[in-house]
């Protein structure tokens, strides 16, 4: 058991925890880690969900606890809405991961509106249409590309 982990070790460990709904995307790149505090062998982490009702939050909270328990005896992971998550918190690497997974990343600093002509993550065309503002998870919408005839999903701006 490490006596006292550093903050950067904690961030490194958090990179090992993935969003269960988007395999390979870490909670750090998703931008849900709001704050990390390390004090005398105690680690406190605040996370803030992408969507309030996201059913994966509790699972990620527990996985973070488990992952960090290797670094400290006392680990506390809190879910907070003090600084709300917005889709701008997804990192550059996270956005790239979304694209590779067939999910159009949300527009940056955009207002909350439907991506009527979302860029196709497969062929890059904007000749697309929105099929449904709601999708398989709370954070996604469903689209269709007229150019490459592929259905695809987009991460909603919120």
């Amino acid at each position: 058991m490490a006596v006292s982990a550093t903050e950067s070790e904690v961030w490194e460990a958090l990179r090992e925890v993935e969003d269960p709904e988007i395999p390979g995307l870490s909670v750090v790149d998703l931008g849900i880690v709001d704050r990390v505090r390390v004090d005398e062998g105690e680690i406190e982490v605040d996370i803030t969900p992408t969507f309030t009702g996201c059913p994966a939050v509790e699972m990620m909270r527990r996985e973070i606890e488990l992952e960090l328990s290797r670094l400290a005896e006392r680990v506390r992971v809190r879910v907070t809405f003090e600084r709300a998550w917005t889709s701008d918190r997804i990192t550059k690497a996270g956005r790239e991961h979304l694209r590779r997974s067939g999910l159009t990343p949300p527009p940056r600093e955009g207002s909350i509106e439907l991506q009527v002509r979302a860029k196709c993550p497969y062929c890059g065309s904007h000749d697309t249409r929105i099929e449904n503002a709601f999708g398989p998870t709370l954070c996604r919408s469903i689209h269709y590309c007229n150019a490459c005839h592929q259905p695809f999903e987009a991460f909603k701006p919120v």
Partner: protein
Amino acid sequence: MSESAVPLLLSLADDELVLGYRDSEWTGIAPMLEEDVATSSISQDEIGHAKALYEIVREITGAGVDDLAYGREPREYRCCWLVERPRHDWAFTIARRFLYETADDVRTEALVASSFEPLAGLMRKVRREEKYHLMHVSAWLDRLSESGEARPRLESALALAWPDALTFWEEIEGEDEFLAGGCLPAPSPELRRRWLERVERELAARGLDMPRAAGPEPPTGRGGARTGDFEPFWLEMTETYRLEPGATW
């Protein structure tokens, strides 16, 4: 001050929980596949908002979130009557959702300025998500008000939902106290006035008349009086919880 916020928090949470469950009844049988997905997703949002509000209550009183959602007797719920009615047809579901979402929007807009920071913070987040619900219901209101069979059905549905929609704005227990503390930044009658203006404008834009019926007397849901529709609904919603209260999943 936080203790006095509990009736307000329960009113907000119970509205979202009950309407979330009611609308989730469409999952699998909505008029089209897209609506199966949309209604399920919107319901999941609402139940998630309720959960986050119950979390704030838990911080204050120590009551468990599941116990708050499923462990209370019907008279202990603080939702308005509008949300506990059966879903009826699609026109009623849309009419109710329009009246509710508009009211909820007025209420959450006020609450982002609440002096009770946990509530204000959550409302800032919730409003970003609710924007999608408003877009959804607005598109459906456009579609149903166009012509043909849908329009008269929408008109009847609005008339049916109207008296219950007014119950959304009944004074909440202890309102004077949490108004004075700034927890609720504007009194219910003032919020109701803003809502009536919004509804009238939205209906007029689609050539629809404002329903005129009065709300039920004496006061109803906010004080714990339930309609006959609530108990069968409640029995179903809480069935799993009541099999073994305290079970973890």
